[in-house]
């Protein structure tokens, strides 16, 4: 009862402070949420490119079905390899023949000039791993040659991978930063109320009497900030998607990272929860000063 009243009173009384504190949580949570979405988009882009990184293993003419099967299993067992798919020369022919130019060229041969092959995809894009995998495959008996055709997007993948890395690090730094700002603001709030707190202590308030309102205030600010942050992020992203569509004709909503994710209960609860955690942690981190 008194607790609830204290929190409400604090809201009313130190409107300015509450505004600062809630505002910072909104900013932090919005940034984190926006960050999460950017991260998702970058990951999505990186995954898309990664799927394109493949090595094609050309198999010696006359290799038996068992040999091929064995080779496939051996490749799959290599570290870093995600999948090895056998493509018979007939399948390859049909695939190429889809392109009318190629069809023309191919039809000038007698029979099928294409070899059997295995298409290899990789788990993560790590140059060293892929190179050593390719080298290992080359030594296999049944292998004629390995074409690692991804060289041209390798450079791009490097960039995207670096972006992912940096984005991850920035994310961690951001959480710490937000926590510091929020806890510092709550510290300032408490510092500002030091006379109030002194008098409370002097008229016999226990530690809990003094601390609890601040903790609940932190939680309340966090809840409000988190939820408002989600609302703002939703509005900003929607507006952005609208603008992007208008200017480039790209429908962002088509990427699963967008609107659906934003509206999912998981995301809403996640952001509100992050706000509460920020508010709570911030107020706990700042408690040290109360009894000084």
């Amino acid at each position: 009862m008194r607790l609830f009243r204290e929190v409400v009173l604090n809201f009313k009384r130190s409107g300015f402070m509450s505004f600062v504190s809630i505002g910072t949580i909104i900013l932090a949570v919005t940034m984190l949420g926006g960050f999460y979405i950017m991260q998702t988009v970058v990951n999505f882009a990186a995954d898309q490119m990664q799927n394109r990184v493949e090595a094609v293993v050309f198999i010696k003419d006359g290799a038996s079905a068992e040999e091929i099967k064995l080779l496939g299993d051996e490749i799959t067992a290599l570290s870093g390899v995600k999948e090895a798919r056998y493509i018979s020369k007939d399948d390859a022919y049909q695939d190429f023949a889809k392109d009318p130019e190629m069809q023309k060229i191919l039809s000038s041969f007698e029979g099928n000039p294409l070899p059997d092959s295995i298409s290899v995809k990789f788990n993560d894009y790590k140059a060293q791993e892929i190179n050593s995998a390719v080298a290992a495959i080359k030594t296999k008996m049944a292998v004629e040659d390995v074409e690692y055709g991804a060289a041209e997007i390798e450079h791009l993948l490097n960039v995207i991978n670096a972006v992912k890395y940096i984005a991850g690090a920035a994310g961690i730094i951001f959480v710490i930063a937000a926590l510091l700002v929020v806890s510092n603001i709550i510290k300032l709030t408490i510092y500002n109320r030091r006379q109030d707190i002194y008098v409370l202590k002097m008229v016999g308030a226990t530690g809990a009497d003094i601390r609890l309102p601040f903790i609940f205030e932190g939680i309340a600010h966090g809840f409000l900030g988190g939820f408002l942050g989600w609302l703002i992020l939703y509005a900003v992203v929607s507006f952005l998607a609208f603008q992007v569509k208008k200017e480039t004709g790209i429908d962002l909503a088509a990427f699963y990272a967008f609107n659906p994710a934003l509206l999912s209960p998981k995301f809403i609860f996640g952001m509100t929860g992050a706000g509460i955690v920020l508010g709570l942690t911030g107020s706990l981190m700042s408690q040290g000063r109360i009894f000084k």
Partner: protein
Amino acid sequence: MIKFSRVFKVYEKNIQALTDINFEVAKGEFVFLTGPSGAGKTTILKLLYREETPDMGSIIVDDTDISRLSSGKVPFYRRGIGFVFQDFKLIFERSIYENLALPLEITGAPSKFIRHTVMESLEKIGLAGRENHNPWHISGGEKQKVAIARALIMSPPVLLADEPTGNLDEASAGEIMKMFKDANAKGTTVLMASHNKEIISNSGFRAVRLRGGRVEE
């Protein structure tokens, strides 16, 4: 009730505020603390309030040595004491009503009881009708009256007052002294720091005289 034995207090920067203080106040007694500025009056009250702890000696209140009280027990000890600060220490972020209600709210008193008690007390000090004002917006004497009302609101067994009449004209000082005497008559032990010779001599109560951190004579 209150007993100081061989109490020494040195503040940081080597300021010797109290030297070998010994005195007793019996239960239900009304005692003045007097002496020139800087003599150590406020320091003695702060020790009793457990805001400071002595460097040596013992301070017995109600059979417990409060300088050895565990910090968890301090709030509950303080609830049995009313304190009038020399500089009032009203909370300017709360209304006059809220300032007075604070000690009651902390003990979890029912709000009806709080309302009744606070309004009665405001009546007594002549500030009825201004309960929703900010204590920043009242005169010096009025602030002092609010500070005194807050100290008395719990009807505490012990009342400590630091110059409670410094900012008051004679008539108001008289009213306030009457409030203290009434509380004392109901059994409250009162220890009051004061410079006001007239009030001390008119009251007929005993005075502990301090000078330079020692009890005189």
